[in-house]
């Protein structure tokens, strides 16, 4: 930009006055200015490194899917963070357990939230029962190893180091003790959010979602305590890819929720250790994505990439009630390895935006010629059909609609589709007609064998239904009855 336009100049001055007054008033900014500040946090009068801190507070730490309260307009402070490392058995899936290594007792680890200019006094505590030394590398830290060396701590010990939050953004933290891959693979990662001055714009709901891949010796779903499989980790072939540490970490009782009309912000991280996530929410479009958890905002995004050891902030307003499905759109991970979550949206339907099932029906391309254009002549012909005509017409229909399941010899398919040939089910003509025109589902017994499937209702005219049933009754040794359109009409 060559010269600042008057509008942005004006905004800058406005901001400057606001900032000055904010310091003199002890940072009592009014909520309405949040957006302005967010957009221009890099232009703040004071560089983050020079920001003074006002008072001390203990950081609120939360387990997923929850996040601590926003920083809002508070001034930079000294922020005390106490994080405990545990090694404990937890549930990976139904009947499958795993020894997780955690920051704060959850996978992903506790969510940490501060603002630019905060001075963090960070203490890492290694539980005495733990077997291994651990440490933490916070990507939000500017300094040696992100704190990895400063926090390298033996079981039963604790270590404290300080750092200043300089760059706003959503950052991953993880254990960086050898062998690093294994520590991460066992669940040692989480997110730390550095809000810009004045905080992120307010939204209605915020949640914490983090993907991770797990390498168990047993195949996906194999019950019992599963050991870490180093070879699978090296080969990057996970048995589990999950949100929030386990299969079902974000579904069922762990599902997250919102109401129609609310704006939802998801803090999404990816601990890896190996896979890059193609994060997608089925049934929603991201209004905004803070790309890679940084400043740059993209709008109207369907799927966003979240690198291993990276993040994104996604925001969207939920407009209609539904169960939104969070997935890694590398889709086998979602449906076969566990990377699936539910955001349940409740509230009033809005049929202008979305209306489900306006109409439905069977689509059968081959049938269309038969079904369409019943002209006068055809109707007249129909009235005069003999039984033999019905059988002939019915045969054509049967070979278009029915044979795929019931087979051309009427034998059906054992265990799946009941037979029509010499079928006792046909003894009751009303039941036979019902099956054709209303469909059939649930368990039935045909010739002594049980079937439990679904037959969709057939969209046939009374004539056609009569014809196909007459064909059936006159084939494969059945009793030779004739079914008339009147009989069909009665059962409609």
């Amino acid at each position, binding site marked *: 930009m060559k010269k600042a336009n008057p509008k942005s100049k004006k905004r800058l001055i406005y901001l400057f006055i606001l900032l000055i007054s904010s310091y003199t008033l002890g940072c009592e900014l009014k909520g309405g200015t949040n957006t302005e500040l967010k957009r221009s946090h890099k232009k703040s009068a004071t560089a983050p490194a020079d920001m003074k801190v006002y008072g001390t507070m203990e950081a609120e730490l939360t387990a997923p899917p929850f996040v601590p309260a926003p920083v809002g307009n508070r001034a930079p402070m000294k922020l005390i963070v106490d994080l405990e490392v545990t090694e404990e058995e937890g549930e990976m899936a139904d009947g499958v357990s795993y020894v997780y290594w955690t920051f704060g007792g959850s996978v992903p680890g506790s969510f940490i939230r501060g603002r630019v200019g905060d001075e963090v006094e960070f203490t890492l505590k290694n539980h005495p029962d733990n077997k291994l030394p651990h440490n933490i*590398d916070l990507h939000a830290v500017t300094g040696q190893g992100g704190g990895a*060396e400063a926090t*390298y701590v033996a079981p039963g010990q604790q270590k404290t180091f300080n750092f200043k939050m300089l760059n706003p953004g959503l950052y991953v933290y993880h254990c960086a003790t050898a062998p690093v891959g294994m520590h991460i693979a066992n669940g040692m990662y989480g997110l730390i959010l550095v809000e810009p001055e004045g905080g992120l714009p307010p939204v209605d709901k915020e949640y914490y979602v983090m993907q991770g891949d797990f390498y168990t010796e047993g195949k996906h779903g194999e019950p019992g305590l599963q050991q870490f499989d*180093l070879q699978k980790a090296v080969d990057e072939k996970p048995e589990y890819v999950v949100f929030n540490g386990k299969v079902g970490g974000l579904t069922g009782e762990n599902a997250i929720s919102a109401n129609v009309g609310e704006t939802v912000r998801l803090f999404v991280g990816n601990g890896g250790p190996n896979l890059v996530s193609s994060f997608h929410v089925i049934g929603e479009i991201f209004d905004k994505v803070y790309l890679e958890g940084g400043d740059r905002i993209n709008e109207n995004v369907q799927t966003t990439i979240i690198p291993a050891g990276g993040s994104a902030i996604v925001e969207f307003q939920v407009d209609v009630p539904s169960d939104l499905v969070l997935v890694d759109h590398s889709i086998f991970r979602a449906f076969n390895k566990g990377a699936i979550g539910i955001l349940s949206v409740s509230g009033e339907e809005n049929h202008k935006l979305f209306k489900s099932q306006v109409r439905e029906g069977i689509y059968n391309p081959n049938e269309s010629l038969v079904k369409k254009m019943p002209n006068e002549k055809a109707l007249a012909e129909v009235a005069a059909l003999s039984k033999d005509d019905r059988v002939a017409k019915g045969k054509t229909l049967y070979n278009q609609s029915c044979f795929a399941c019931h087979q051309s010899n009427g034998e059906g398919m054992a265990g799946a589709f009941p037979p029509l040939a010499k079928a006792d089910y046909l003894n009751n003509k009303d039941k036979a007609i019902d099956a054709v025109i209303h469909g059939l589902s649930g368990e039935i017994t045909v010739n002594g064998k049980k079937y439990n499937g679904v037959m969709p209702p057939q969209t046939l005219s009374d004539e056609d239904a009569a014809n196909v049933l007459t064909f059936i009754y006159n084939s494969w040794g059945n009793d030779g009855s004739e079914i008339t359109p009147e009989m069909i009409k009665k059962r409609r």
Partner: protein
Amino acid sequence: MNIKNLLWIWMCLLPIQTMAQEMALVRGGEFLPLYGAVKNEMVQVKDFYMDAKPVTHADFLEFVQKNPQWKKSMVKKIFADERYLTAWDGDQQVPSELHNSPVNNISWFAAKAYCECQGKRLPTVDEWEYAAMADEKIKDARKDSLYNVKIIRTYEKPKTHLLKVGQGEKNYWGIFDLHGLVWEWTQDFNSVIIAGESRNNGNGEKGLFCASGAVGANDLMNYAAFMRYAIRASLKANHTVTTKGFRCVKDANSNYLVQK
């Protein structure tokens, strides 16, 4: 603290012969330890005897009875932190179910004193690693991925310090439980840091965080070894850890008779 006090602490009141446990002879040789591998230099290990089992709570109780300066209530903070012998109910009350389990929450100072009072010493890192690379059948099983996987498993398994010593299989040298129960103190446990500094711009521990990235993709051996070097490097000599115990060794030329 004056010199006299220090001497008092270091001196064994009574050399303890009765509790000397069975030792196994480890024939010396050359090998390439994990950190030797960085320099690609073979390391020489001389013949030595090693305790066949880790020192147990019962063994250590006997020791403190004869050397009261190592009792929980007497020990100086600079020699053992406050979690020293934390499983014990008092100076001499060892829970009965632990008698035959490896003693844990022991500082390096305490372990060293125990060995010296028996005319033994702590093993060096190289000696320990040399003895521990044997499986039941061969001296160096590190190339056997199953062997290494088995070791890594035990590192992940919680509460193994409560198991009893000598329940598993002896290794090639006739030694039990080098893997599977507790980490073990070594004489020069922090030497990797010192050696590391010269390689790493005064940044010894860095190799432990970052060098793992350089580990050959299929070298499972190094994963297990890395974890051992990592725990060693994280400790100070007065630290006591729930999952760390020790055993002693003795030079083979010191006329020690193997007890059968």
